[in-house]
């Protein structure tokens, strides 16, 4: 047969194309729609060809909560993929998201209610019925409430978001009457949020990588472990690869993020603040600032100071922070500091990003304030391509009975060592309980949290939680028998996130909100019950019905109440079940919210008054003022909780929304000068503060720094075999020069001691960490959490996982928290994860 040449094929193709175009529509086609391969959404068993059921849901591995799809075959989840219709994740998920299957089927999972049968902590439990468990718990709770001490029920949560945050915290605890509630933000990034609350108001910053031209990164592992990881990481990579956007990372360690950056600038621990201050100085000194930004900036005691005065004040304040001075402190070359500052200021749009590397320090709150300053003086705040105020979907939800008791609380959640613990001081809770000066809870209930493991001073945590005199009754709802479950009197088996209902939402990387929905992909294993369902049951047993009897009902009612959702085709609940995500296709990205004018009507509303000295319009009825006269006498800044009534800020002859305050009574200006901080004895402007413990260190004293890896969740994933197979050992990183000076070679065992404790760990000697620092990751050193995590079988763990025979690792790593003091940043209460000094020697 004649062979068709390539040339002829191409000619024929061109002619066929003309022919098909000419004869368009002359024949009906067989196929419709378009190929959407990149978006997935359907799956088939490769052997049988049988289609798998696709269930839209939302991840709950880390706080990012990427929308995704679980594929179910014969009642078992077999695969997880990203949700193609999500405008946040764009259909992508990470390894932790894919390993969600392990969260359901790991062999050491708690499947039945367990009651302690021996001494607390000795691991003896008996299986009991749900009725038995909840009868006992409801009985204890009811007794406290009926005796007038609901505050003696303490609820402590870790990862709780969306409806899994609101139902327990706001509805259940609100109806019960206890305000003794603690989260975990201070061991995460509380200092960052407080830094923002002092500058631009309500917390959380989105980084608009889609539109940026320059990125400065201070201590964020944005490409591996950020709180909005997949949505932001992919956009940053795209900006760098497709547009060659410069991306400079300042970090103690060559993280994966640093390695993918245009430049890694090694910086000594706790000195990023010095670098930022010097950059701001260069920008002000060289007149590279955006003059217009100073309209909205407060930089002086006098709120109404003209722009020139504010500029002059800031110049004067920053003049001391020269690049050469910063080089001396941080180790970053002065020439580079100057170069980056100029490039940042001159870029059309630039974004400064930050996380724990900047904020988990003694000077962390000022570090974040300084980062905010760098953004604002260059016009890179809330603008396309800059650091933006977070936009997220808003859900309405049923709040339980209208009439609720006045909440009582034990003052044990904010510690005693920080001035503005706006997000609590969770690492101090157990210490406060031990101290006892402010009372102790009779029932300590924790959820999705591991107080022993995730805070510093592990041994003290164990000692306190083990002591039945200090902690009379301990209860947890959990899927895994971890270091803290071991000390629970009652363990209530929770559903994994793939077996439960939730409404949810997280910050949008594009400034357009997305509503997200979690639903059970499969029935709960064993006798597991969702924590929300348990609380509804407990409420009914205590004769305080919440108005719904399950998390499913709560979520359904929320869908019917939420304006954007309720009118979706087929009804909001059914729509979200089918689609998993929703965003308004007509919505435009939200920028420059602070420049919007307040409606004249809003200034005339009852209770709204003007503080003439500050130019703040506020509604005194929302504050703690007794009456209008008191509000006027005290003024906006001195009235308790006046920020809750903030309406707008006068800028010249206009009243704009400004930078709306949250948690503190700041004005509507972007405050680089804070009278609130000044009144508490802190520097009003972001200012250099050295880490006290880092001054005059001996040769064998190193600064311990901590980090996360991309394939583990902080403390909730080592039971996942796919993840732990990838990461199950964490030798301590030490710079080769430092190691040589201490006689340490790669692979040596080293002893680390602090005032808190001692650990032995293998040394990983390299050049990827600054001299004088030592780095140990989180995640590992588990003493419980099942065979994949610790080698130990949990009570009632089963052998139903054939992969147990394939487990090849017998190293479980080392946990740094045994060494780290529960010490807060004096401003925010942020846990100082990166400040601990340890003495290092060969073991």
């Amino acid at each position, binding site marked *: *047969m*004649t*062979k*068709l040449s*390539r040339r*002829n*094929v*191409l*000619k*024929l*193709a*061109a*002619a*066929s*194309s*003309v*022919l*098909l175009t*000419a*004869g368009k529509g*002359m*024949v*009906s*086609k*067989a*196929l*419709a*729609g*378009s*190929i*959407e*391969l*990149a*978006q997935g*959404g*359907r799956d*088939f068993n490769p052997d049988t*060809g049988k*289609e798998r059921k696709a269930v839209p849901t939302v991840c709950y591995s880390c706080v990012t909560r990427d929308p995704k799809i679980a594929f179910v075959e014969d009642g078992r989840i077999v695969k997880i993929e990203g949700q193609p219709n999500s405008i946040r994740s764009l259909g992508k998920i990470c390894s932790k998201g894919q390993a969600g299957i392990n969260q359901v089927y790991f062999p050491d999972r708690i499947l039945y209610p367990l009651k302690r049968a021996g001494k607390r902590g000795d691991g003896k439990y008996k299986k009991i019925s749900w009725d038995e468990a909840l009868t006992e718990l409801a009985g204890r709770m009811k007794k406290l409430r009926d005796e007038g001490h609901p505050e003696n029920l303490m609820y402590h949560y870790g990862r709780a978001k969306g409806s899994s945050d609101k139902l327990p915290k706001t509805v259940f605890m609100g109806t019960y009457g206890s305000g003794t509630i603690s989260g975990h933000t201070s061991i995460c990034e509380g200092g960052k949020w407080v830094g923002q609350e002092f500058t631009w108001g309500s917390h959380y910053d989105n980084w608009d990588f889609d539109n940026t031209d320059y990125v400065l990164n201070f201590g964020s592992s944005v490409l591996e472990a950020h709180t909005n990881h997949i949505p932001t990481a992919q956009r940053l990579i795209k900006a760098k690869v497709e547009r060659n956007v410069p991306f400079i990372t300042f970090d103690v360690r060559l993280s994966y993020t640093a390695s993918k950056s245009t430049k890694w600038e090694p910086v000594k621990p706790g000195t990023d603040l010095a670098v930022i201050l010097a950059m701001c100085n260069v920008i002000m000194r060289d007149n590279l600032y955006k003059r217009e930004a100073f309209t909205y900036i407060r930089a002086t005691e006098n709120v109404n100071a003209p722009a020139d005065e504010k500029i002059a004040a800031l110049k004067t304040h920053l003049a001391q922070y020269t690049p050469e001075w910063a080089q001396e402190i941080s180790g970053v070359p002065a020439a580079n500091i100057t170069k980056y500052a100029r490039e940042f200021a001159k870029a059309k749009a630039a974004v400064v990003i930050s996380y724990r590397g900047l904020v988990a320090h003694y000077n962390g709150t000022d570090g974040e304030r300084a980062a905010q300053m760098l953004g604002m003086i260059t016009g890179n705040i809330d603008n396309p391509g800059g650091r933006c105020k977070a936009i997220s979907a808003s859900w309405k939800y049923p709040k339980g009975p209208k009439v609720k008791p006045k909440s009582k609380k034990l003052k044990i959640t904010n510690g005693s060592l920080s001035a503005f613990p706006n997000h609590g001081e969770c690492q101090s809770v157990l210490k406060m309980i031990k101290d006892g000066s402010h009372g102790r809870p009779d029932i300590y209930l924790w959820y999705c949290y591991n107080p022993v493991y995730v805070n510093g001073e592990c041994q003290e945590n164990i000692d306190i939680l083990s002591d039945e005199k200090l902690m009379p009754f301990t209860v947890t709802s959990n899927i895994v028998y971890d270091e803290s479950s071991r000390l629970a009197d009652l363990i209530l088996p929770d559903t994994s996130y793939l077996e439960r209902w939730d409404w949810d939402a997280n910050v949008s990387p594009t400034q357009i909100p997305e509503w997200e929905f979690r639903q059970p992909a499969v029935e709960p294993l064993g006798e597991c019950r969702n924590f929300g369902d348990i609380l509804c049951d407990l409420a009914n047993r205590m004769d305080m019905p919440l108005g719904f009897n399950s998390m499913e009902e709560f979520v359904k009612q929320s869908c019917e109440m939420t304006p954007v959702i309720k009118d979706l085709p087929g009804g909001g609940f059914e729509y979200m079940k089918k689609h998993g995500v929703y965003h308004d296709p007509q919505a435009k990205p939200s920028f420059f919210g602070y420049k919007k004018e307040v409606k004249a009507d809003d200034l005339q509303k009852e209770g709204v008054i003007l503080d003439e000295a500050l130019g703040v319009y506020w509604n005194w009825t929302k504050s703690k003022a007794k009456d209008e006269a008191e509000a006027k006498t005290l003024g906006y800044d001195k009235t308790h909780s006046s920020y809750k009534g903030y309406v707008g800020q006068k800028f010249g002859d206009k009243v704009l929304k400004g930078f709306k305050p949250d948690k503190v009574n700041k004005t509507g200006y972007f405050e680089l000068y804070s009278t609130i901080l000044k009144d508490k004895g802190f520097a009003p402007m972001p200012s250099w503060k050295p880490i006290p413990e880092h001054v005059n260190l001996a040769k064998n004293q190193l600064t311990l720094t901590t980090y996360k890896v991309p394939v583990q969740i902080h403390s909730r994933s080592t039971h996942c075999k796919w993840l732990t197979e990838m990461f199950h050992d964490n030798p301590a990183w030490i710079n080769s020069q430092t190691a040589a000076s201490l006689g340490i070679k790669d692979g040596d065992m080293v002893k680390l001691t602090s005032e808190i404790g001692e650990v032995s760990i293998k040394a990983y000697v390299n050049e990827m960490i600054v001299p004088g620092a030592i780095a140990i990751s989180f995640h590992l050193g588990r003493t419980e959490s099942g065979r994949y995590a610790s080698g130990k079988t949990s009570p009632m763990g089963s052998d139903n996982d054939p992969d147990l025979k394939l487990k090849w690792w017998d190293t479980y790593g080392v946990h740094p928290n045994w060494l780290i003091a529960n010490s807060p940043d004096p401003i925010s209460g942020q846990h100082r994860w990166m400040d601990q000094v340890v003495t290092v020697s060969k073991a």
Partner: protein
Amino acid sequence: MEENNSQVGSIYGFLARIFAQEVTSDFLAEIRTPQFRGVLEESGVDLGDDFYSRPADELLEELVIEFTGLFIGPGHFLSPHESVHRVREDGDHGKLWGADTVVVKKFIEATGLRFQSAFGGMPDHLAAELEFVQKLEERMTQAQAEGEMELAENLDQIKHRFLQEHILTWVPPFLDRVIAKTNIPFYREISKLAVQFLASEQEVLLSTT
């Protein structure tokens, strides 16, 4: 993946059109243009002078009758469906809407496409399978133009898989039977062209795998 390969989508479209239904007067007019004749002849397709000189109505009548006799019936016709012609080891073949029909349907639908509600044929009809590859090629061209190289690679792999698992397993021998059976040059020559084209596609496939 060869960049030029994406241009062959229109050949799949042309062939899909040939085997989807009988020739219409519009389509016939397009085929008989001197430009298209030139291209066909360069490719070795000789439809004969008669094809280009006969009155259109008369030729059309002959083509329609031949198409019906070849692919629709009654009598001994060649059912243009994979499940009829492709021999399976499990014996589940030789019938309409067989095991391979289901496999093809799922394969095509898994890419996001669906069958037109007005499409009365079966998913493994020769024309539907060719049209599927045409769609893959078109999307590949678009992906390349938009710089979505990962998607383009993915589409190319799917096309290769579909050719290997389906079209190449049954279409060439099926067309050989058409060539042997038909009484007129048009379906014989076009079928020969299709066989040659699929052989060239197989060559590309083998050179890239």
